[in-house]
């Protein structure tokens, strides 16, 4: 035979395809693989039902500033009286020269128009209904004293990472809940299901089920002897088995993400027939889930090699990662302990992808949390703004890469860190495997 080979770590293409193909076929014959994948799909689609229901039901319009109410009972809503310059609190004073508006006209009449904010420019806002520009004096029109009438000051404080909003009276004061809530709800769903459902839950449970026994089950069955009696290093066996595992999990993750992207892209709110800007977010979610499942898979497979009850270690590790997932998602990128985890870096990938695909996302959140500037005043004189529907979930599930670099570089760095974690796990795993006596 001319093709006999005497060294290991050579002819990798032939050996890797052989083991990877073999591993994938082995997965295919196991019922548990199908059970896990079907259960994951069913779970995600169950959540999708709630999303579709929410997208197809109307969000109740709220009169945020209360100007559709006719305080003095003269038939004219407060907003109209203010616009026409009469006193809304006196039934003797009303604009008799116009017909009274129906109250609905003064609901959602002054939407937030902050789309045009660019770097360095922080005066935004537009008085859609004209109740600010119709004020009498300049000081009434410019309550925030920036020299511009009927605008809003938006100051971004990069040191404390807060946004300061100071609006002139009656500007953007009654936003459209339906428009905002659909958009925010849509994004919050993508981020919630993407970060928690796909990157964390799929990313950790697929490896738990599929990778923990990758080597260990062969060892306890005794079938590992066939593989180890071949001129191929144990590190190679581990690597190629992992390839086979990825050959099953990655297409599954990609398939799920593509399906969800298509469904939400067509159902979601927006002017076009498809939400093209979501594609980037879904790509980053899929990529993060793929990288995370790679790292977890290698780690869990290593646990299986170390100890026959490796699943205990794996579950403890998964609990740690669950904690880190909460920290990484709910802190919005403010905690540094997340760097000590796998999931934290996966979330940075998603956050960077979001920042690239939806550059206005953080702005949308702040807008929604401000919600027109109405709310109850506390004893310090600060106003607790009443947020618009969807703003709080979106804020909870959004984050900031916070690496101090541009989003693209954050994307690359976090991917690199995950790859390094995977390589390190593989290296440790193969060193232990190499020194393991296999009975």
């Amino acid at each position, binding site marked *: 035979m001319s093709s006999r080979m005497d060294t290991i770590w050579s002819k990798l293409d032939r050996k890797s395809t052989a083991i990877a193909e073999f591993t994938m076929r082995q997965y295919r014959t196991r019922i*548990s693989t199908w059970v896990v994948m079907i259960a994951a799909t069913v*779970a995600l689609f*169950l*959540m999708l039902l*709630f*999303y579709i*229901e*929410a997208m197809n039901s109307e969000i109740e319009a709220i009169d945020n500033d209360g100007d559709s109410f006719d305080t003095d009972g003269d038939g004219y809503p407060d907003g109209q009286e203010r616009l026409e310059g009469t006193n809304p609190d006196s039934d003797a004073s009303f604009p008799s020269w116009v017909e009274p508006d129906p109250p609905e006209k003064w609901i959602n009449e002054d939407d937030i128009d902050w789309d045009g904010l660019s770097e360095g420019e922080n005066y935004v806002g537009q008085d859609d209904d004209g109740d600010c520009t119709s004020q009498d004096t300049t000081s009434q029109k410019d309550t925030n004293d920036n020299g511009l009438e009927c605008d809003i000051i938006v100051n971004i404080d990069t040191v404390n990472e807060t946004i300061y909003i100071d609006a002139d009276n009656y500007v953007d004061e009654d936003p459209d809940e339906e428009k905002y809530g659909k958009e925010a*709800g849509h994004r*919050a*769903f993508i981020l*919630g*299901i993407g970060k*928690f*459902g796909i990157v*964390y*839950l799929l990313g950790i*449970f697929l490896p*738990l*089920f599929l990778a*923990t*026994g990758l080597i*260990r*089950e062969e060892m*306890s069955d005794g079938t590992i002897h066939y593989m180890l009696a071949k001129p191929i290093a144990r590190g190679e066996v581990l690597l190629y088995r992992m390839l086979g595992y990825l050959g099953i999990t990655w297409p599954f993750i990609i398939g799920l993400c593509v399906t969800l992207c298509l469904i939400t892209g067509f159902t979601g709110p927006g002017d076009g027939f498809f939400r093209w800007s979501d594609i980037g977010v879904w790509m980053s979610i899929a990529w993060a889930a793929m990288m995370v499942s790679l790292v977890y898979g290698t780690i869990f497979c290593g646990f299986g090699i170390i100890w026959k*009850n490796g*699943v*205990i270690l*794996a*579950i403890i590790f*998964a*609990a740690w990662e*669950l904690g880190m997932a909460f920290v990484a998602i709910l802190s919005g990128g403010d905690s540094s302990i997340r760097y000590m985890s796998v999931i934290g870096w996966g979330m940075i990938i998603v956050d960077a992808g979001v920042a690239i695909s939806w550059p206005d996302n953080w702005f949308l959140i702040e807008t929604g949390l401000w919600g027109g500037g109405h709310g109850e005043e506390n004893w310090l004189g600060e106003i607790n703004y009443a947020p618009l529907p969807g703003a709080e*979930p979106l804020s*909870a*599930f959004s984050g900031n890469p916070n690496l101090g670099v541009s989003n693209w570089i954050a994307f690359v760095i976090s991917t690199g860190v995950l790859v390094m974690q995977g390589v390190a796990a593989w290296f440790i795993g193969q060193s232990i495997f190499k020194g393991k006596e296999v009975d």
Partner: protein
Amino acid sequence: MSEDTPFEPVESKEESFGAETPVTGQTKMQAAWSGSDDEKSSAQVAQSQQGQIFEQIYQPWTGTLNPRWMRNWAILRHHILGIFKTGHRPWNIPTKLFIFFVIIASMTDVAMALLFGMIGEPTLYDIWGVNRDNLYGHVMGFFPRNILYYPIVAALLVGGMISEDRAHGTSALYFSRPINRFDYASMKFLAVGLILFFIINGTLAVYYFVDILVMGKGWAWIIDTFPMFLSAFICGIILSFTYTSIGLALSSISRGRFFPAIGLVAILMGTRAMASIIDALFDKSVLYVISPYDAVAHVCQALIGTEMTYDHPWVWSLISVVVINGLALYLLASRVSSLEVTRE
């Protein structure tokens, strides 16, 4: 086969010597002649017309069988006593250690209540002492009890309960004895359930009664709180029953110890995580009915009378608990009754 010639001569075909060949005595004959150096002798045996060299005589067993409960009791104590001493089911060391840890850890409230009760800090004692919320929290508290303690104990216990019997063929040890499958499954169920019950309700009882004894509570207080304790106790039973039935169902459908353990944790955590995402996004709590933990927790909130944290009616959760347990028990029963007594 006719009665006077029980052992038909077997054709000497290759397939007939497989593992599925009926025991005829032929192979044994041939093995006895394996000293000769060719197939000639085995061919002779195959052609032997008498075919009656071996005679099998079965003698009926004439001993007395112990009653059924006594046999079942033997299975039950085999599993439970394995936790404490050797010579019974060999639970692995990590499982024993973890159970020990959980028993200690779930008695933190006892220690805290005792501490602040003894040193006389009434405000701190009020936080840790026995009251409606704390009794609920001892059984149903999510973090850490129902994420780190009880589900993990259940996962470790059910891990190899039935699945390893399937993988190693050790179920034959049971089924070759006068034990039926229902007894086998129910004793395994009872063993896991009882260990969980001792951990959850045992520590609950310690918590309650230590408070009475040490703090010298009067009858009025006992009459006030005993119904709460009783409902918390019932909740503990429902909780351990639910975890056990899901876990054993998973154990019965799989081989090895990885799948059932991970499966139980995945079901408990996964459904809860899903429901909480939906709750956070769309402010709808109804998906919690698919989460076994939340369904039980909701029923317990209704039973103990603490503040409800779910928006849907608790009857839905009650139905869900019944359905989840029913499905799991059905799965367990159908799998155990069709279990092949072999090394699979």
